[in-house]
């Protein structure tokens, strides 16, 4: 390349990148200009409620590490608009993944959202800091039934976010015999048609239930049995997906499976034939919570976020966008009063509002302490097995082709070497 042209090209690139960086980089708060009256409006037209109460914040940014498909965009935008803080969000799709990144150290997150059972582990590892109740005035908005759970007595470290169940999801149009229990999923007629969430404790747990054991057993013999039983099921599962399992159902890539509340609700909205069934052995109950990391650099912004999202007029957005079981009574009342359609869709659905017997029959996952590696090992080994009886003949064809190619290559190399040797000898 001639020097002048290259210089021009480089200059062009440099300018382009500086323009882009100035426009987008550096964490500026989201979307639109404030409306004349001072109310903040997000890019989708949602008018942001004022923080109540408004907290004192000096930090300029907040780093949260959260589940995928869990936050209404309006909630995120509104926080940035009303407080002027840049919100950086990274996502994960399993508790184990979150734990690995947080415990490895070096991460800069302030808030994370563990599910109930892993909080005990995080407390033991001194990863969390105790929450200052005086900075959480809105904590009274939560239903008492969700507070003071045995994974965090007195809510010293955590506040609830959303809860739900894991149960069977079925496309009633494409599946003839609708499964009624976890054990039914082992039936050969479902082979190659199922989507499961990629959650070790939940999947191992449901296997234990089919054997009549407790989902939190630490008995190695029982776990061995579960491993063998699970090894029969895994080849029948077409896809493991904890990011957006509803996609496989809606797209028709899978006909049934095991997913969370919210995914089933949205799938059902897209296609009413997709139904959620609480198995006879009992669904798995869970609750996600906010915790603050021990070395959080922006604690004040974190408290501001927690309080703001706990407000009824903000939290109701989850009832609108990501329908899980909602522990926030203020949000439920606000939705009931102002958006009855949204509220009724939530209240009437057995997905988000499970019937009492299902809840009574349900099982919660708990921390198993030292037995954790046993569960982890089962998961890796069972999933490491090869999937369904796959490409037999094509595999051989390719192998044969490969042998031919290798033969060719070897021959060509032999000739090349010979030519070289001849050339040298001359």
């Amino acid at each position: 390349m001639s020097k002048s042209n290259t210089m021009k090209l480089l200059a062009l690139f440099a300018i382009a990148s500086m323009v882009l960086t100035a426009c987008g980089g550096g964490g500026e708060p989201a979307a639109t200009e404030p409306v004349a009256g001072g109310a903040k409006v997000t890019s989708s037209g949602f008018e942001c409620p004022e923080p109540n109460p408004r907290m004192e914040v000096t930090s300029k940014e907040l780093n949260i590490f959260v589940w995928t498909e869990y936050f209404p965009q309006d909630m995120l935008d509104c926080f940035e608009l009303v407080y002027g803080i840049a919100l950086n969000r990274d996502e994960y799709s399993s508790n184990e993944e979150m734990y690995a990144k947080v415990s490895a150290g070096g991460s800069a997150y302030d808030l994370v959202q563990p599910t109930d059972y892993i909080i005990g582990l995080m407390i033991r590892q001194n990863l969390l800091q105790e929450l200052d109740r005086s900075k959480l005035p809105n904590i009274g908005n939560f239903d008492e039934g969700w507070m003071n759970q045995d994974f965090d007595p007195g809510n010293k470290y955590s506040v609830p976010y959303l809860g739900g169940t894991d149960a069977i999801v079925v496309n009633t149009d494409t599946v003839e015999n609708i499964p009624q229990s976890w054990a039914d999923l082992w039936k050969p007629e479902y082979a190659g048609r199922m989507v499961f969430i990629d959650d070790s404790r939940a999947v191992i747990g449901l296997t234990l239930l089919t054997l009549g054991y407790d989902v939190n057993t630490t008995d190695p013999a029982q776990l061995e049995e579960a491993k063998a039983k699970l090894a029969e099921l895994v080849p029948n599962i077409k896809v493991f997906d904890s990011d957006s399992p509803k996609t496989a159902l809606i797209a028709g890539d899978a006909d049934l499976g095991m997913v969370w509340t919210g995914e089933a609700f949205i799938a059902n909205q897209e296609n009413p034939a997709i139904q959620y069934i609480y198995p006879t052995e009992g669904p798995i109950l869970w609750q996600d919570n906010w915790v603050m990391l021990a070395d959080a650099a922006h604690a004040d912004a974190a408290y501001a976020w927690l309080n703001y999202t706990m407000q009824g007029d903000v939290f109701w957005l989850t009832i609108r966008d990501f329908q899980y079981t909602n522990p926030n009574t203020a949000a439920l009342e606000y939705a009931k009063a102002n958006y009855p359609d949204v509220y009724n869709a939530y209240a009437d659905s057995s997905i988000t509002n499970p019937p009492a017997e299902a809840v009574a029959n349900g099982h919660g996952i708990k921390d198993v302490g030292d037995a954790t590696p046993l569960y982890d090992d089962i998961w890796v080994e069972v999933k490491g097995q090869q999937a369904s009886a796959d490409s037999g003949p094509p595999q051989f064809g390719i192998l044969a082709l490969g042998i031919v190619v290798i033969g060719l290559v070897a021959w060509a190399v032999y000739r090349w070497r010979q030519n070289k040797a001849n050339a040298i000898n001359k």
Partner: protein
Amino acid sequence: MNPHRRHPFILSSAMLVYVFLYAPILVLILFSFNASRANITFEGFVPKFTDRVVMDGSLVKSSPCGPFHWFCELSKNQDVLEAAGNTLTIAFTSTIISTIIGTMAALALQRYTFRLKPFSQLSLYIPIVIPEIVMGIGILTLFSQLFGLLNNALGLAGDSRLSLGLGTVIVSHIAFSVPFVTLVVQARLQGFDKSYEEAAMDLGANEWTTFRRVTFPMILPGVLSGGLLAFTLSLDDFVITFFTNGPGSTTLPIYVYGLLRRIITPQVNALSTVWILAVFTAVLLLQWIQTREQKL
């Protein structure tokens, strides 16, 4: 004359391979105009232009941008712009630094003998051949342990705490770019005719002037290729960035991967189309420059 040049087998198989290469890309671009938000099948183009977005279930019936609805959504997406900005910043910084130190290293390896030479040569080959995940995990482990130690020892807290972020990503990118730059420049130096330098020295130039006026311009094409290679590697890197990034340092590849983990709307396709167009433009630009070169 080559007997195979127009052989129908060669021509047809070559064309088939091109079709194989481009079919997915074309489908990708087509779907970025998809009227269906669920993006499972192609439901046609968004027909009307109105001043509001009107949806019917997951079908977009009309939009201010018409068929370009998803591109408009993309432009309103602050996260994308931030990721793009990050990607370019990282690419530029790591390219400049790795080109400079890589060229220096190439000169050293090609022209001098010193005790650490074999070790350097070997350690430069390793990143080229090992899988990225091995390097990524290693670097992550290093940073985790190192930051943990330093943060405790120096009592850092709050914003001054060392953590994964833009800095760690840039440093890691330099680590895998430098070997490539060095290799390219070394290859260029191998065919280098020393007589030019000797002539310059004979004419009275000192070493620095010789380098500046004779050596450097002659190896410049190699340096630039190396730089271009480093830029491309950094721009497209996923694995190493995946392990070393932190909040606020998301790059475009990581962002696209994140998008795939949520409901996949045609916005992902729109982003892909924009990316492909950018690459296409860059390639056209390069070709234009090359043809201008050849004419000179």
